């Protein structure tokens, strides 16, 4: 991209490559995900170090988050199985949420890289596809471990005509999960970058707030859908 912006360069498809054997890794995604993971770990460690009966400050925030995620998982997965999957759903939600907001709020431009630039890890298709494939593995594992081979009955219920559709669904689930997240986050960054290129002051602010809002919703949607797929897999038919 030929744009040269003061705050962020508008670059799609430029990366900081790290060579590991035959592989080309996108280094900037690793760096920003490590920062996100580090921030989350630090928050949790600080919040749980001196726990009190009456939560204050960070502990209060963490307990609020835990309640919120527990309700989300319980609504989608059901009372019986949600405890096993709450850590997975919670990790997905927090990682995606903090990545999305971190990509918009942290001034990455201050950290100079030889090529490419730091940004939300979820604005890279590889991150979102990895997360979506994890969800696929998770719901297969959930179904198989809970029901054994009877899990595959789900494919022929209510009629065997549904079989091809259900098989196609297994492929479209990760595809739509990953593209939805990737497209939304990249679109937010592009809209803000284009507006900042046209009018550098004030005008991009509403778009940035809209971006923050949609990124939060996208994190919620990803977590909700992951929980819904797992819930679908462990759901017992009432005969």
């Amino acid at each position, binding site marked *: 991209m030929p744009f040269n912006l003061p705050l962020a360069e508008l670059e799609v*498809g430029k990366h900081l490559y790290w060579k590991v054997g035959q592989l080309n890794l996108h280094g900037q995604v690793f760096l920003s995900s490590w920062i996100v993971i580090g921030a989350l770990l630090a928050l949790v460690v600080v919040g749980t170090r001196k726990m009190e009966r009456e939560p204050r400050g960070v502990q209060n925030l963490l307990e609020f988050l835990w309640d919120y995620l527990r309700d989300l998982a319980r609504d989608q997965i059901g009372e019986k199985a949600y405890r096993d999957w709450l850590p997975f759903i919670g990790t997905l939600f927090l990682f995606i949420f903090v990545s999305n907001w971190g990509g918009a709020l942290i001034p990455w431009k201050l950290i100079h890289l030889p090529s490419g630039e730091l940004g939300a890890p979820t604005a890279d298709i590889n991150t979102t596809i990895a997360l979506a494939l994890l969800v696929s593995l998770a719901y297969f594992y959930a179904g198989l471990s809970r029901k054994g081979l009877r899990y595959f009955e789900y494919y022929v219920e209510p009629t065997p005509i549904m079989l091809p559709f259900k098989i196609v669904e297994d492929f479209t689930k990760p595809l739509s999960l990953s593209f939805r997240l990737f*497209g*939304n986050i990249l*679109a937010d960054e592009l809209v803000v970058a284009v507006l900042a290129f046209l009018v550098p002051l004030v005008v991009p602010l509403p778009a940035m707030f809209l971006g923050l809002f949609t990124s939060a919703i*996208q994190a919620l*949607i990803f977590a909700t859908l992951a929980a819904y797929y797992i819930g679908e897999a462990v759901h017992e038919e009432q005969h």
Partner: protein
Amino acid sequence: MDSITSAASVLAAGLAVGLGAIGPGIGQGTAAGGAVEGIARQPEAEGKIRGTLLLSLAFMEALTIYGLVVSLVLLFANPFAG
């Protein structure tokens, strides 16, 4: 990239977003209309309706975003560039 390929790619990128915005636009309008009707009938359910509406709007918006992903691939990572 030869000129025909680039012209077709730019045109296709525009069409992918433009045509992809029609359906979700109609759908979002219907959904928002239904939500307004629901709030008018039952103002005390506003919070619940708003939450559901925002979630479903985001699902519909995802359809346009798929078009956007296709057009971004055509513009920035064109597989036919050769």
